Structure formats: C-alpha cells, structure tokens
C-alpha cells in the first residue's frame, strides 16, 4: 500500500524568508501524481501545487515550487518570500495514475503546521 510521510509536524518561518517542507512517499507504481494541499485555519483545503511523476521538471506556482526526487521518493515544497497568509496546515498527498488503472483517491501525510512570524 502507498504511504506518505511528513516528518515535520510543525515548522516556522520569518516573513519574507524561505521555508522547505519535507515529504516522502512509498509506492511500487511507476506513474502517479503528487500534491501539496494547504488548509488555512478554519478554511477549506486548497491545492497548492501538483507534480506528475513522469515529468522530470519540477512544478512551480509563483512562490511555491517542489523538489521532486523520484528515485529517492521525495517531494518537498519550497515557499519563497513567505507571507503571513501562507500560515496553514500543509498536506502532502499521493494518487495513483488513472491511466494505469489506479484510483484517484488521495493518500495523505499527517500534515505540517506552518507558522509565519512577522
């Protein structure tokens, strides 16, 4: 079974600084998707960024980028120029590719609570 591990229950960063959240996963599949979701306090979870395993290029979305190391099964999230609004719970998630008959269900890590200090 696939598993996702986030080893940092909590992280903090100074406003305008850069922070990296770690995520490792385990799977025997060759094609899959990885996601970072953000859940601000008392708000809905939203997708931050996603990576398709067959793409070697790391995904980026404005200040958010990932370091995808397929061989190491590592998928870290880097937030540059951190803002107060980045404070949230961040979840790393995995789903098998439907093109290989996988289910789109998401497998989540336990989450990392990010605090941004002014």
């Amino acid at each position, binding site marked *: 079974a696939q598993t996702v591990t986030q080893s940092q229950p909590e992280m903090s960063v100074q406003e305008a600084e850069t922070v990296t959240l770690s995520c490792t996963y385990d799977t025997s599949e060759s094609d899959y998707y990885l996601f970072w979701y953000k859940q601000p306090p008392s708000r809905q979870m939203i997708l931050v960024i996603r990576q398709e395993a067959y793409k070697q290029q790391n995904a980026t979305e404005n200040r958010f980028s990932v370091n995808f190391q397929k061989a190491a099964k590592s998928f870290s999230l880097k937030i540059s120029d951190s803002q107060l609004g980045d404070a949230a719970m961040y979840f790393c998630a995995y789903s098998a590719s439907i093109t290989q008959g996988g289910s789109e*269900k*998401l497998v*989540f890590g336990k989450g990392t609570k990010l605090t941004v200090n002014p």
Partner: protein
Amino acid sequence: EAGVTQFPSHSVIEKGQTVTLRCDPISGHDNLYWYRRVMGKEIKFLLHFVKESKQDESGMPNNRFLAERTGGTYSTLKVQPAELEDSGVYFCASSHFRGFSNNEQFFGPGTRLTVL
C-alpha cells in the same frame, strides 16, 4: 462558481445515535469523494462515487457507515449507530471527470463530528 459545501459544519451526538452528513459537490462534477481525519492522524479515504455509482468503497471502516449519492448530485454519509471512535472531521471533495489524467479534487470545509 460555488464550491463544495457540507452540512452541518459541526455535529455533537451521543454514542448510539445516528448522524447524517451531507455534501453538495461543485455542479457538473461527476466524481465525489469522502475522506475522514481522526484527531492526530492522517486524512483517510472513505469512498468514491462516479455519478451515482460507488466506484471504490475500500476505505469505509465498517457497516455502520452508509453513503449514498442520489441522482448523481449531492451525497449523504450516515453513521448508525455512532461510536466514540467515529469522532473526527469528515471531508467531501469533488472533481470534474475521469479523463486521461488525474484531476484536481476540490474540498469542502468539512463536518466536525463529536461522539460523546
């Protein structure tokens, strides 16, 4: 476009009672998912509907949980009878269609269930 909505936002019930949670997906989304986060643990998949059909219910914990999706629109998740270990936050998510790539799942705000 309205997002995924869930009702109620909070529910507190006694052990042995019945509770029904509702999820309204984004209009036109064929896929609907239920997830649950028990305190301190990972968010876990419960089941997946494609329109009104159950595509995958491998995550349903036991037969006290019953999910339905009438006419392929809104979905309900009933817990009967509720036990203490059912406490947690129940999330619903929807996505557009099953094409050739995995689609973004849009999440609702969740229903916090407390069983006393």
